[in-house]
């Protein structure tokens, strides 16, 4: 089978999906499986690596190579895989707890290294698999079983954190908008370095409709700031509002007419950071789309070829040469 003939079915494994009915992870899985055939990468050259969490189950459902690793460590495992093999298309699927709580360190370091992997954060702002505790993206004041009096902690914002870590591709999308999600994932797939995509994901069981401000049609019209490269950053029911530059530097909400033009490829991540900081991710307005998409040296680029080349002709003679390095003497 040539890769041109691939279909969604080629990326569906025989394992029964095991998410709760209505879980946003279904839509994400479907979007990814829908996108994969068009990338022209054979299933055997695609690898999914996940950590632990509801989202971590993803790996079992995609008929590629895959590893369901341990909580928080998937980016490290993916980095090691890439260190040996840059000939594979490597995807990491993570939850907000997996990626940002226990896995925070590997996330920021793989981002600064620009390790070629696509990392999806299924952000339901809750711990699903462990049955409903706060996650690092839960809002201050959130009442859960581990915070019966309300969380006393400010959330981490994945976009800000990624930009602060030097990420080269940073985007946000939402499980209920398949077209948007597919478009963002497609761009991520084509990004040669590390791409991190925050996907606002519903958990009907433990945090139902936490993202209703961008999924309910009426509310979304007001709250979604669409980021489109080269286009003015406008939003509002009638597109009447815009993100505008302030005279002293910085951005604010203002008139659509004055809206700045979104440049995802800007070397300076400042405006991406600024746009993300506007509004309120929990209640809106909130920007969706690709914040940043720049080229930078890719970690381990060419390693497969380089390792292969360095191995040509490598044999016993090389071992012997190694063993004889430095001063030697002979005892008769």
């Amino acid at each position, binding site marked *: 089978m040539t890769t041109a003939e691939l279909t969604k079915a080629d990326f569906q494994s025989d394992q029964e999906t095991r998410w709760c009915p209505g879980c946003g992870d279904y839509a994400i899985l479907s979007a990814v499986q829908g996108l994969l055939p068009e990338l022209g990468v054979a299933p055997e050259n695609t690898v999914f690596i996940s950590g632990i969490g509801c989202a971590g189950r993803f790996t079992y459902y995609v008929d590629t190579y895959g590893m369901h690793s341990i909580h928080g460590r998937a980016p490290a495992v993916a*980095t090691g895989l890439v260190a040996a093999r840059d000939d594979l298309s490597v995807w990491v699927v993570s939850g907000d707890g997996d990626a940002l709580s226990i896995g925070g360190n590997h996330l920021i370091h793989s981002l600064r290294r620009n390790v070629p992997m696509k990392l999806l954060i299924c952000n339901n702002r809750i711990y699903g698999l462990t049955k409903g505790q706060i996650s690092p993206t839960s809002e201050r004041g959130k009442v859960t079983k581990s915070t019966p009096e309300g969380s006393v902690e400010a959330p981490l914002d994945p976009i800000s954190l990624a930009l602060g870590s030097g990420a080269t591709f940073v985007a946000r999308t939402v499980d209920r908008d398949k077209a948007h999600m597919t478009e963002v994932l497609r761009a991520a797939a084509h990004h040669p370095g590390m791409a991190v995509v925050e996907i606002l994901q519903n958990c009907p069981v433990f945090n139902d409709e936490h993202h209703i401000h961008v999924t309910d049609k009426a509310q979304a019209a007001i709250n979604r700031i669409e980021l489109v490269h080269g286009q003015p950053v406008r939003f509002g029911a009638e597109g009447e509002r815009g993100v505008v530059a302030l005279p002293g530097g910085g951005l604010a909400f203002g008139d659509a007419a004055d809206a700045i033009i979104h440049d995802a490829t800007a070397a300076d991540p400042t405006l991406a950071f600024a746009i993300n900081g506007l509004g309120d991710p929990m209640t809106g307005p909130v920007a969706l789309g690709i914040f940043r998409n720049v080229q930078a040296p890719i970690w381990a680029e060419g390693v497969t070829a380089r390792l292969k080349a360095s*191995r040509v002709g490598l044999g016993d003679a090389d071992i012997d040469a190694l063993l004889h390095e430095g001063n030697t003497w002979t005892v008769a």
Partner: protein
Amino acid sequence: MTTVERNQSGTDHQPEERESVIVRFAGDSGDGMQLAGGRFADATAMAGNDLATLPNFPAEIRAPADTLGGVSSFQIHFASRDIATPGDSPNILVAMNPAALRANIGDLEKGAAILVNEDAFTKRALMKAGYETSPLDDGSLDGFQVTRVSMTEMVTRAAEDVEGATTRDIQKSRNIFALGLVSWMYDRPAEVTQKWIEGKFAKSPVLRDLNLAALRAGYAYGETAELVGTQITVPAANDVPPGLYRNVNGTQTLVMGLLAASIRSGMNLVLAAYPITPATDILHELSRRGGHGVRTIQAEDEIAAVGMALGASYGGALGVTSTSGPGMDLKAETIGLAVMLELPLVVIDVQRSGPSTGMPTKQEQSDLMMALYGRHGEAPLPVVAASTPGQAFEAAIEACRIAVEYRTPVILLSDNFIANSTEPWLVPSAADIPAIDQNLTTEIPADGDFLPYARDERLVRPIAIPGTPGLQHRIGGLEKEEGTGNISYDGPNHERMSQIRAGKIAGIDVPDVEVDADEGAEVLILGWGSSAGAIRAGVRRVRQRGIPVARTHLHHLNPLPANLGEVLRSYKQVLLPEMNAGQLSKVLRAEYLVDIKSHTNLQGRPLRAAEIETAILEVLGA
């Protein structure tokens, strides 16, 4: 350029022959003692002696000058016969300052020689070392053969001919002066050091000439000064097997072992590590080997490092991670994952003195229990321990072989002593290294689906790596159904899988132990890891008393050699010396119900021949 020549005839004294000598260089950490010792060792190796060395660093990078905390030393034991340890008590101590004297004098026996740089015994330096009066003058060194040399002055004079040498450079060449002097005293060939200087400072003629001058001055000082006494010579060793030799430490051999295994198996080598003393040098050494199909990664922490190594293994490479105690703690969870996945992974633990941060530059072999049991759940894995700097080569290959062929993480135990000490090594030949068979599955099975958790007769599962068409499958840390590898919460399946995992490890083929036994021996001395040398030497001492003894050494800690129980039970007494509180002893008692006697030591240094001798005699009631 001037040539220094070994010239015995230039002196009136006839060199006195000895069978073995122990020299210790000691000075401030900035004094270059490791360098002087290392050069001395190389020259000694080239002279054909057997030898063993023991470097001893302070924990600080550069502790304040002249303090006890800043003393660095290097001991070398060399002989005309096979030797096993860096020696217990030095015959000569070279002390570059008062702190070095004070920190080391306790290890000397009366009658030993002490060579001091008397220029360094200033009031201030004495005070910093905690001396109220100068030990050179207050009689406290009575009974030692003290030689005082104005080294600072001597190098300053020697440098007069070298144009452009700065005061700082001149001061820094004192170690080379001392090396020259000691080289003369023990009749070491100067050419080896001379060549090394010429190579090392090829790009800086001033430093080259300065160091050559210092070396020559030291050598000449010995030849001419009445003070130094008799020159001592130690003839080349003649009881060592013939062949090509090289002076190596256990880091170099371990790295060569990994490279050899990688070349032999045809697998790329990916080492991911986070720096930690004393394991870091493995990362340093391998990082220079990009040309050999190697990729190294300095990870963000030890958890990432082992995760990366595992990721690389998953991709078909030989994934290796190296660390020391604290880093091992952090790798536990991922090692457990590797046990569950059944992927090859080599985890190297260069042990040091614990617990916690402990004494990072000191010796201990106290991570054995952790290697065996330091993970939650039933997660058995093979443990291999290196025993000497040279043997670390084979140990590394063995660890790789088991990891690759049995699809399992393997813990390879080395330690501070093995990593840093040196010994002459009979260089093996590539042809003698066993092949390692990665045995990947590349074809879709004719008879149906690929079953990643099917088993061969050794209970080993097949591996297909990403990129192999048609064999896509998923693996993970949840319990798996036998055969398919699909997630399974079935109790009996879990029990079966647990037994399979355990059975596979228990069934790994490891060689029987061989016992070096005297006729009529009633006591067996059993060791593991870097106690090998001290035990060998201690046993020799007891044998010299005419007492029959048996000795054996373990390189495989899991699984244990099949004949071990029988061997243990065939002696009245078993003595097990180890640098911990009795860890292997515990393991063997549980396994064989044999009342093993422990000799333990937690003093942060290698075991000594004398203490082994005493322990054996005690066990024998002799």
